């Protein structure tokens, strides 16, 4: 198992390097001149602008700047300084990371704790009114834009009922609405996946055997059927986390939570390359780590997948790719 984890961790390094190259290249092509923006709208002469560009290192070639940026980030964890705030990006990213990760974490837990039981219930009562109602409700939530749902929740719980605060990030109370608004759509996704993969196993022979042995229905469903239905559910959990992370980026602006999303969007509006690059990199890192954990859980649940990584590459069976391929992102 340790060998497998190490192998997967090593595979992440080249991907993250490539990610940082892509991020840098994208930001390199952003229209607009950060030098003139950094003056804050004051009128400056052409020479002064040149001097600012010189000090920001904007007049050097693409390759030089790329190598310097990637080197700084990976060897010294130095993300550069923000053009607009004049502060180093690294520590700011770290403090903002916790807010974003907190929302992501609560949503992830919510998604699994609520989504899987709802799906299981639906599968057990398949095609009965209960199943139809919960499947239609989940589809409805799945079709709502998270930012709109967030605004509706604010309208109901903060403005009308006054139960929860609508802006800020001081205590757990402040994170309930943001987490709920990104999680509801994903709960729906998980519930639907759970239902369909439970339906596949629930009719199989070993479930009938378990029932025949006189196990309680609860034990049959959660002890025998669910573990075997778990693999596609885990895939969808990973994918849904990506979707939620995208949602968090948008939603932070609504709840004015000082997280990576707000930082990135402000950076985009100010043409603040270092800020945007740093935020993107940390978001990609978060997502990669979750995908890594997904893979580890996979390997834990299904020994066949672990065996794939252990064997030499030549023996890798391409036909199994279909099982792992994420058709439902």
């Amino acid at each position: 198992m340790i060998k497998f984890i190490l192998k997967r961790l090593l595979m992440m390094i080249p991907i993250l390097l490539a990610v940082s190259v892509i991020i840098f290249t994208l930001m390199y092509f952003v229209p607009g001149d950060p030098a003139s923006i950094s003056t804050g709208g004051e009128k400056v002469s052409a020479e002064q602008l040149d001097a600012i560009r010189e000090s920001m290192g904007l007049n050097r070639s693409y390759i030089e700047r790329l190598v310097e940026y990637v080197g700084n980030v990976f060897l010294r964890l130095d993300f550069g300084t923000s053009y607009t705030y004049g502060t180093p990006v690294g520590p700011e990213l770290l403090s903002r990371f916790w807010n974003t990760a907190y929302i992501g974490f609560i949503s992830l837990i919510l998604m699994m704790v609520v989504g899987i039981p709802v799906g299981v219930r639906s599968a057990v009562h398949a095609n009965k009114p209960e199943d139809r109602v919960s499947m239609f409700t989940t589809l409805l939530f799945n079709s709502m834009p998270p930012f709109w749902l967030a605004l509706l929740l604010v309208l109901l719980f903060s403005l009308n009922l006054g139960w929860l605060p609508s802006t800020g990030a001081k205590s757990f109370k402040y994170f309930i609405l943001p987490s709920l608004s990104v999680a509801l759509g994903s709960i729906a996704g998980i519930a639907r996946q759970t239902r369909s993969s439970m339906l596949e196993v629930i009719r199989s022979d070993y479930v009938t055997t378990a029932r025949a042995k006189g196990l309680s229905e609860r034990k049959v469903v959660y002890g025998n059927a669910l573990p075997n239905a778990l693999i596609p559910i885990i895939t969808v959990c990973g994918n849904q986390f990506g979707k939620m992370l995208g949602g968090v980026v948008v939603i932070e602006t609504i709840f004015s939570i000082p997280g990576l999303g707000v930082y990135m969007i402000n950076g985009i509006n100010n043409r603040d390359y270092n800020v945007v690059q740093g935020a993107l990199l940390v978001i990609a890192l978060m997502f990669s780590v979750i995908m890594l954990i997904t893979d580890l859980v996979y390997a834990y649940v299904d020994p066949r997948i672990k065996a794939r990584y252990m064997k030499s590459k030549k023996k890798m069976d391409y036909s199994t790719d279909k099982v792992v391929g994420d058709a439902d992102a």
Partner: protein
Amino acid sequence: MRKILTEKHAIKGEREDRSKKVGSLPYIWKRICKNPGAMMGIILLCLIVLMSILAPFILKYDYMTVNLANKFALPSWEHPFGCDELGRDIMARVFVGARYTLSIGVGAVAISTTLGILIGAVSGYFGGKIDSILMRILDVIQAFPALVLAIAISTALGQGIANCIYAIGLAYMPTFARLMRANILSIRGSEFIEAATAINCSTSRIIFKHVIPNTISPLIVQVSMSLANAGLSAAAMSFLGLGVREPYPEWGTMISSARTFIRDYPHMVIIPGLFIMISVLSFNLIGDSVRDALDPKMRD
């Protein structure tokens, strides 16, 4: 008189049976027609498209006309959906806005499908080095959540409708490429491809005439599911001010500008969002029914 069975007859005979051929387009269509949810989705979507086309002709108000006397008007007979902060009729804006949201969604999915099919087909068909290089590139793209990548790309391209379409299209491309690749790998070993190779078909002919038509049905499911996601992304990007901007009435843009007035005039936020939800719901319903139609376990 003896009837000579020509090739034409043979083809005609085959056509008549096509709706029974599992996985063929007529078969899928027949199954969709039997599904009430899917029909509801198709009808809702058609209504929205129809309204977006006809809006300028049947509605009394123009979506751009500012009338400060009607500022924040609540829904009434005169203005069924009310008016916004500049007194513009929200009904006209919502209907015209469908053009932007839906065309960004459809355009983006068209781009990601085309690119995805090409990349997946090349990767799956040739295998080897090309395959592993392309797959590593996809790995890197998929290290980002799709919406975040779309935001990053649209930042680089600059704001605008076309750029928004490219950005979302690129961000959703890997899913299609991987799906296509997996399909091709499973088809590549089959006998009819061997036969086509044996009669000396060119590589492009094999890919376009034999391989792609056989991968079409899983792609349809993915297309309809992606339309839902792309629509949501389009709205989210406009909400952030990266897609369509004022005064164009994209639904996300409308919600974004109505946000400040949510306390007193919630209808300005609720109505455009409802339309996003309805169109995404329709795409989801259609996608679900296509998936069920193709699922051998659901066959009656």
